[in-house]
C-alpha cells in the first residue's frame, strides 16, 4: 500500500494510460470475438447498488464503469475518471471525469456518481452493500446508513459536470482501491426513476460500460454486446460476452471441453493436476485473495474447552494443511498458517512458529497440549464442526474430522444451508465452523478487520493489543509491520485455525488473450480481452 498523503504539500496527479485491448505483436485476431464465461448460479441482480454477489459483479463490471479500473496486475488505473488529486491531509479527493457517454447517448456526469453513492447509502434503497460506502469512510456515510442524516448530506459533491469531490472522515489508505467495486459505479437517475425495479431488464438498462445488456434469461444465460457509445469503443475488440449458468461444476467442465464455454474460473476439487497434464495450454492456477479457516467460538455461548488456548493450539496443529492442499484441493492453493492471503499487495508474511514444524512434530505437540489441558482417552474432547453445503467444504470437514480423531477429539459434522450457517454464526450458535473471507480490496486490513473487537468476528475474539495495532495501521506511514504484528497476535491467540489460501484453478480457452492472471482480486474486463486465430 502506497501512502498518498505525503509530507510536502504536493497534490498527486495521476494520469496513467488507460488499458484497453491492444493485441500483442504477431497475434492475428480471430473472426469470432465472443466470450462465454461460466457462472455457477443464476445472476441475482444487475443493479450495481443492489447486488451483493461476486458473480453479479463480474457481469456488472462489463455494463458499467467506475471512477477507476484495475489493470491486469490489479493496480488502479483511470476509468470514468481521467485524473484525480488528493488534498494534503488526505481527506479530500477530487476526480476529473473524462468525456464519456451512457449507452443512450447522455453524457456521464459527476452527478451520476453522487446519485449512485447516495442511493447506495440511502436506507430506503435497502442495499445489502450500504456498508461499503461506510467502509470508504465518506463523510456522513455511517449516519445516512443509520438513518440519522439525509442522503443529500453525503460527502460526495459534483463541483461541476466533470468534477467530483469526495471528502473523507479520516485518511483512508485503501480509498482508491474501493473505486473499482460495483457498489461505487454510477447509475442513470432518469432511467431508474422512470422504470423502477425493472430498469435492469434488457432494453431498458442504460450503462456506461463497454457493453450493453442484450438478453437475460434467468438461470440460463445473459448476454452483453459491445456498446458503441463507450469512450474506448475503438479499442474494444471483444464483440459479445455471454454469462452461461451451469449449476453443476462437472457438467460445466464437460461443456467447456466440448467448446461451449471459453473460460471456467473454478474447477472441481482435485481435477486440476489431471487437466494440467492433458491441457497444459489451458489449465492455469492463480492466487485469489480469500482465506479459508476453521473458526472457534470464543463467545459465552461457545464450549468451555475452546476457551483454553492449549486446546485451540492443539486443534490447529493437528490439521494437516499439506494434505488439504496437495491431496484434496490440488488446485495450486497454499497452506495457511496465518489469516491474510499471502498475495495481498504490500503484505509481508509473519514468522509463524508452527509453519516450520513437520506434521509429526505438530501432532506430538497437539497431543501433549490436549493432555495438559486435561483431555485424554478417559475424558475425550467432543466438538461439532459446522459447514455449509458444498462438495469442497464437505471434503475438508471430513478430513479435519479425521485429523482431530488422530489426537483423540471426537467430532460430529453439521451440514447446513448457507443461510442457516450464516444465521448460526451471527448468533454464535456453533462450536467450530468453516469460514472463509474474501478481500473487498487489495490490502491486508480487509482481512484483519474481521477479527477486530466489534468487527464481523463471529467467534467473538477480542484482544486490545490487536485492536490498537489495527487502529495505528489505519494512519501509519508504513502499516506492513503493524499488520505483521497483528497476525502474530492473532495466531498466537489461535483465534482461528487457518487452513489454506485460495487459488483459482482455471481453464481458459487457448485462443483467449488478456485474462488477468496476476490480479489477486480476480477482477476482469472483457474489453481488455481478445481472441486470436489459430
Amino acid at each position, binding site marked *: 500500500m502506497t501512502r498518498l498523503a505525503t509530507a510536502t504539500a504536493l497534490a498527486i496527479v495521476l494520469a496513467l494510460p488507460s488499458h484497453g485491448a491492444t493485441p500483442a505483436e504477431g497475434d492475428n485476431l480471430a473472426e469470432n470475438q465472443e466470450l462465454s464465461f461460466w457462472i455457477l448460479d443464476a445472476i441475482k441482480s444487475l443493479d450495481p447498488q443492489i447486488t451483493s454477489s461476486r458473480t453479479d459483479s463480474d457481469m456488472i463490471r462489463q455494463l458499467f464503469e467506475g471512477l477507476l479500473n484495475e489493470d491486469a496486475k490489479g493496480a488502479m488505473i483511470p476509468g470514468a475518471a481521467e485524473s484525480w488529486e488528493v488534498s494534503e491531509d488526505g481527506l479530500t479527493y477530487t476526480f476529473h471525469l473524462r468525456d464519456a457517454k451512457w449507452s443512450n447517448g447522455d453524457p456521464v456526469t459527476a452527478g451520476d456518481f453522487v446519485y449512485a453513492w447516495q442511493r447506495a447509502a440511502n436506507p430506503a434503497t435497502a442495499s445489502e452493500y450500504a456498508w461499503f460506502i461506510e467502509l470508504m469512510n465518506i463523510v456522513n456515510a455511517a449516519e445516512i446508513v443509520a438513518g440519522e442524516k439525509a442522503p443529500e448530506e453525503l460527502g460526495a459533491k459534483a463541483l461541476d459536470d466533470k468534477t467530483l469531490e469526495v471528502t473523507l472522515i479520516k485518511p483512508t489508505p485503501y480509498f482508491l482501491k474501493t473505486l473499482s467495486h460495483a457498489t461505487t459505479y454510477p447509475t442513470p437517475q432518469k432511467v431508474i426513476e422512470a422504470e423502477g425495479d425493472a430498469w435492469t431488464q434488457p432494453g431498458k438498462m442504460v450503462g456506461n460500460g463497454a457493453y450493453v445488456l442484450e438478453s437475460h434469461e*434467468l438461470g440460463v444465460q445473459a448476454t452483453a454486446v459491445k456498446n458503441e457509445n463507450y469512450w474506448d469503443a475503438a479499442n474494444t475488440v471483444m464483440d459479445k460476452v455471454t454469462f452461461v449458468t451451469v449449476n453443476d461444476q462437472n457438467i460445466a467442465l464437460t461443456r467447456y471441453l466440448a467448446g461451449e464455454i471459453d473460460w471456467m474460473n473454478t474447477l472441481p476439487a482435485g481435477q486440476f493436476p489431471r487437466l494440467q497434464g492433458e491441457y497444459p495450454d489451458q489449465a492455469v492456477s492463480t492466487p485469489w485473495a480469500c482465506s479459508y479457516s476453521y473458526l472457534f467460538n470464543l463467545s459465552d455461548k461457545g464450549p468451555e474447552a475452546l476457551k483454553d488456548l492449549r486446546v485451540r493450539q492443539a486443534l490447529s496443529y493437528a490439521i494437516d494443511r499439506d494434505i488439504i492442499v496437495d491431496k484434496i484441493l490440488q488446485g495450486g492453493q497454499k497452506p495457511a498458517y496465518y489469516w491474510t492471503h499471502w498475495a495481498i499487495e504490500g503484505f509481508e508474511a509473519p514468522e509463524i512458529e508452527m509453519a516450520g514444524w513437520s506434521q509429526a512434530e505438530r501432532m506430538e505437540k497437539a497431543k501433549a497440549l490436549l493432555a495438559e489441558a486435561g483431555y485424554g482417552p478417559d475424558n475425550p474432547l467432543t466438538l461439532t464442526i459446522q459447514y455449509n453445503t458444498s462438495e469442497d467444504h464437505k471434503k475438508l470437514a471430513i478430513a479435519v474430522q479425521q485429523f482431530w480423531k488422530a489426537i483423540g477429539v471426537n467430532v460430529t459434522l453439521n451440514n447446513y444451508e448457507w443461510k442457516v450457517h450464516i444465521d448460526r454464526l451471527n448468533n454464535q450458535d456453533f462450536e467450530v465452523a468453516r469460514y472463509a473471507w474474501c478481500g473487498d480490496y487489495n490490502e491486508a486490513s480487509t482481512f484483519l478487520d474481521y477479527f477486530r473487537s466489534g468487527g464481523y468476528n463471529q467467534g467473538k475474539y477480542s484482544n486490545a493489543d490487536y485492536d490498537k495495532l489495527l487502529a495505528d495501521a489505519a494512519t501509519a506511514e508504513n502499516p506492513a509491520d503493524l499488520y505483521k504484528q497483528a497476525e502474530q497476535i492473532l495466531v498466537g491467540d489461535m483465534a482461528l485455525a487457518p487452513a489454506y489460501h485460495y487459488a483459482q484453478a482455471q481453464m481458459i480457452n487457448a485462443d483467449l488473450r488478456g485474462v488477468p492472471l496476476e490480479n489477486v482480486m480476480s477482477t476482469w474486463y472483457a474489453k481488455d480481452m481478445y481472441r486470436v486465430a489459430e
Partner: protein
Amino acid sequence: MFAFVMRRLAVAIPTLLLLIIFSFILMHLAPGGPFSQERELPAQVLANLNEKYGLNDPLWKQIWNYLTGIVLHFDFGPSFVYPDRTVNELIASGFPVTLTYGTLSFIVAILAGVSLGVIAAIWHNSWLDYLAVGISIGAQVLPNFVMAPILVLVFTLWYRLLPGGGWSFTDPTFWIMPVIALATSYMASIARITRSSMLEVLGSNHIRTARAKGMPEHRVIIRHALKPAMLPVISYLGPVFVSMITGSVVIDIYFSTGGIGKAFVDSALNRDYAVMMGVTILVGALTILFNLIVDILYAWIDPKIRY
C-alpha cells in the same frame, strides 16, 4: 358429472389455503431469513428491507396481505433474492420452460411406454416381451441424476450432436436431452402397467368373444382391448405430471433450462419466501387440476364409474 367437478373445485380452495398457510408458517419458523448474510446488516437497512417486504407485520397479517394480494391483484409479491424481478415475472419466465419440456416428456413417456407395453403383451413370453420388460425395469431404476450427465457426456462431448444445456423455444435440439432424461423412468412405469393390464384384458371373456367372432387380431386389440387396458395407466398419469415437475429440478440443474424446479429449490435454500410460495401454490393447483382431469378421463373411458 358437473356436480362432481364443482364439488372437486370447491375442495380445491381449502386445499390451497391449507397449503399456503402451512408453508407460510413453516418458512417463518425456520432459522435464517432472506436477509441473513455474513455482514449483519445495519439495523436501519434491515428495518427498511423488512418494511419493504412487509416482514414486520404479525404473521396472520402477512398471510392475509399475501392472500388478498393474490386474490385481488394476482400479485405474488416481489422476490427477495432476485430483487430485479417479481415472483410473477420469475414464474412467467420459468414455468413455460418447465411446462414445455414437461409436456413433451409426458407425451413421449405415454407413447413410448404404451407401445412398449402393448408389444410386450401381444407377444407375451417371446424375446420381444423379455426385451421390453428388461428395458422398462432397467430404465425404472436408473435415477435421472445419473442419466443426465451420461447424456451430456455422450451427445455433447463425444459426438458433439446436441448443445449441453441452455434453452430455446424455437430450437428443438435443446429439448432432446431434457426430455429423454425426464421421460425415461416414467416411460418404463407406463410400459409395465400397460403390459400387465393388457395381458389381463386380453385374457378376458369379451376379448375371447370378439376373437371367436373372427375379428382380425389388430382390430381386437385397437377396438376392444386398448381402451379398458388404459384405465390403470390413466390413474397413474395424474400424479406423474406433477412429479415430473418436481423431478425437473434435476433437469434444470444439469441442463441449465431455467425452469421452476430449480427456482423452487433455490428459493427454499435462500429463504426466498415469495418465490417459494408462488411455486408451491402453482404446483398445488396443478396437482388438483391433474387429479381432476384424470377422474374425468376415467369416467369417460369406463362408463360404469359414476361420480
